[in-house]
């Protein structure tokens, strides 16, 4: 890999104290090269938001270091971090997070006020981005009048207007219908391919995994590589969620059979009463085999 745009080493982030302490990020290291599109997926509460907040220079880790575009951000002050975010990182949020009072074009140009060239240099780029994303006719529209797909494309244009080296997208297709989600997915893919941006996407959307260069699985604060090939799935007997057998760190053997769990919590609940959950799991498996 060429010089990574994003490099994280041994990140640790802990919340709470004593027996309520949670290690949301537990020794994670990660490199992201130019033009690479990487997805991070994992169950709820696995630490995804904490991790992207650290990687996006919004949250300081307790331990470890993060380097973005060659700059170690760990020791930076708040002002320098704000400047770095404005110039080097583009954010795309699940809830779009457009500014209600500004029209599409002004929303896209908003981060340009924070960059050295200001809006004068960025105006042409903003118009070109909006045309490219199919929003050329909607430049003067207020966010309240846009569809979900239009809002997310506006948010993507906003993320790109300062020509950042890194895009961090949190569930970018989470609030979109399948057609709009497909569009947004392809836009993000094209950004990485055409502009050499590093794109880091937190998602549960398996369609994005199809275009990802790497898929990372985050569970209990730790990160592992996972291939995009079809996976062997098992159903968690406690919460009934589908779990990747290959990646699941939580499993237990009971009466000659292996059970996989989505989280430590489900694992613990199973251990408390394995007989009840094993019967439930067997029934679910039987139902799946013979749905009629």
């Amino acid at each position, binding site marked *: 890999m060429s010089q990574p745009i994003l490099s994280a080493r041994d990140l640790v982030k802990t919340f709470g104290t004593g027996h309520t302490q949670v290690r949301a990020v537990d020794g994670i290291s990660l490199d992201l090269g130019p033009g690479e599109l990487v997805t991070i997926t994992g169950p709820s509460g696995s630490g995804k938001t904490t991790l992207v907040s650290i990687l996006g220079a*919004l949250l300081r880790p307790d331990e470890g270091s993060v380097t973005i575009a060659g700059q170690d951000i760990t020791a930076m002050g708040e002002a320098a971090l704000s400047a770095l975010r*404005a110039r080097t990182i583009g*954010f795309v949020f699940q809830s779009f997070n457009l500014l209600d009072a500004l029209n599409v074009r002004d929303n896209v140009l908003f981060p340009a006020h924070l960059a050295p060239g200001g809006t004068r240099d960025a105006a042409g780029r903003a118009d070109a981005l909006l045309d490219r994303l199919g929003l050329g006719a909607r430049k003067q529209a207020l966010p309240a009048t846009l569809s979900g797909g239009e809002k997310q494309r506006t948010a993507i244009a906003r993320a790109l207007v300062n020509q950042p080296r890194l895009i961090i997208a949190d569930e970018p297709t989470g609030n979109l219908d399948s057609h709009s989600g497909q569009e947004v997915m392809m836009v993000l893919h094209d950004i990485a391919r055409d502009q050499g941006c590093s794109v880091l996407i937190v998602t549960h959307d398996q369609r994005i995994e199809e275009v990802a260069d790497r898929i990372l699985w985050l569970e209990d604060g730790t990160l592992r590589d996972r291939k995009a090939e079809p996976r062997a799935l098992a159903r968690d007997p406690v919460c009934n969620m589908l779990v990747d057998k290959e990646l699941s760190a939580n499993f237990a053997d009971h009466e000659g059979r292996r059970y996989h769990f989505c989280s430590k919590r489900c694992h613990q609940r199973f251990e408390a009463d394995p007989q009840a959950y094993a019967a439930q799991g067997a029934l679910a498996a039987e139902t799946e085999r013979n749905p009629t």
Partner: protein
Amino acid sequence: MLNWAFREMLLAPQQLFASVAAVAGALLLVLFFEGVFAGESDQIVALIDKTDADVWVMQKGVGNMHMSTSFVADWKVDAVAEVEGVARTTPILYMNSAVEASGRSWFSYVVGIELDNPRVGPWEMVQGARFPAPGGAVVPEIFASDAGLKLGDTIRIAGTYFRVDGFSGDTFSMANSINFVGMDDLADVMGTLGVVSYILVDAEPGVSAQALAERIIAEVEAVNALPRDIFVARDYSIAVQMGLNIVWIMTLIGGALAVLLTGFVVYSHVTERERELAVMKALGVRDRAIYAAVSAQALTIGGLAFAMALALMAMAIPLAAEFAPKISLAITTEAVLRAGVTALVVSLISAVIPVRRILSVDPVSAFQQ
């Protein structure tokens, strides 16, 4: 950020208007009470101001007309007349007294004038004679209207009855009114003989009032003499000072109300837009830029409210003259400056109120659903 700050306010124009109107109402309190005192003060000096004598001569040691008593021996009228540069002298008698009619009474200036000398008298007439006949009085029309007086009815001044000969205009305010009677009649009421209160002096053309006043003091024994402008300013200053504490109290009350209202509006804006502020921070906007935007919103509300309060006050003056003639309203430069400074201070204090809230907005919350 400023673009966002202004457009964010315009996103809900009714809310903006309501906020501005509420703050304008608080600022109007400041303007209104100062306007009332300015209007009253204008009326208190109306006699001196409208009677455009160049110099006023009074008893030595006296420097005012309002709340003052002055006695000057009547032979000094001739002595003043002989001073070089004096074209004409006009004596008046003057007392402060309650004027009673129809069971009501008003604090009044009672001015005794020479009935055969039209130099001093009402400057605006509504009905009847401008100069009263012996035993008669010219009273303010508003006073007469309140008491249901008609020409020929009687009023009582310090226990003496006078016939109403005329109704004057522009001679009444809540603080005082001006009544004109014959000088001899007033001397009888006051029990004085051979004295006048003030001597009004007209200067010969080309003679400065200040120089003439100094010459009169030098040449006539035991008198004080003041050019009209200085005499007006001194009385106006006394009148204003009488209301100054109340004006300050109303300024504080109005200012505190305006701070509460503006602060609430600005704080509400911050609270309602917390998510947007988190997004801005995530995108790289610094706290101080957000603070500047919020300050701009507070200053805009304060500025618009100030302009609205001024406009309302300007409308209130003719309306008060029409529908509440007892209230004398005026806008002075001092009142405008005081309200303007209040609006500025209000805006700056209000902008500080949401600072902690702004600082506590966590950019990570932009990731939350």
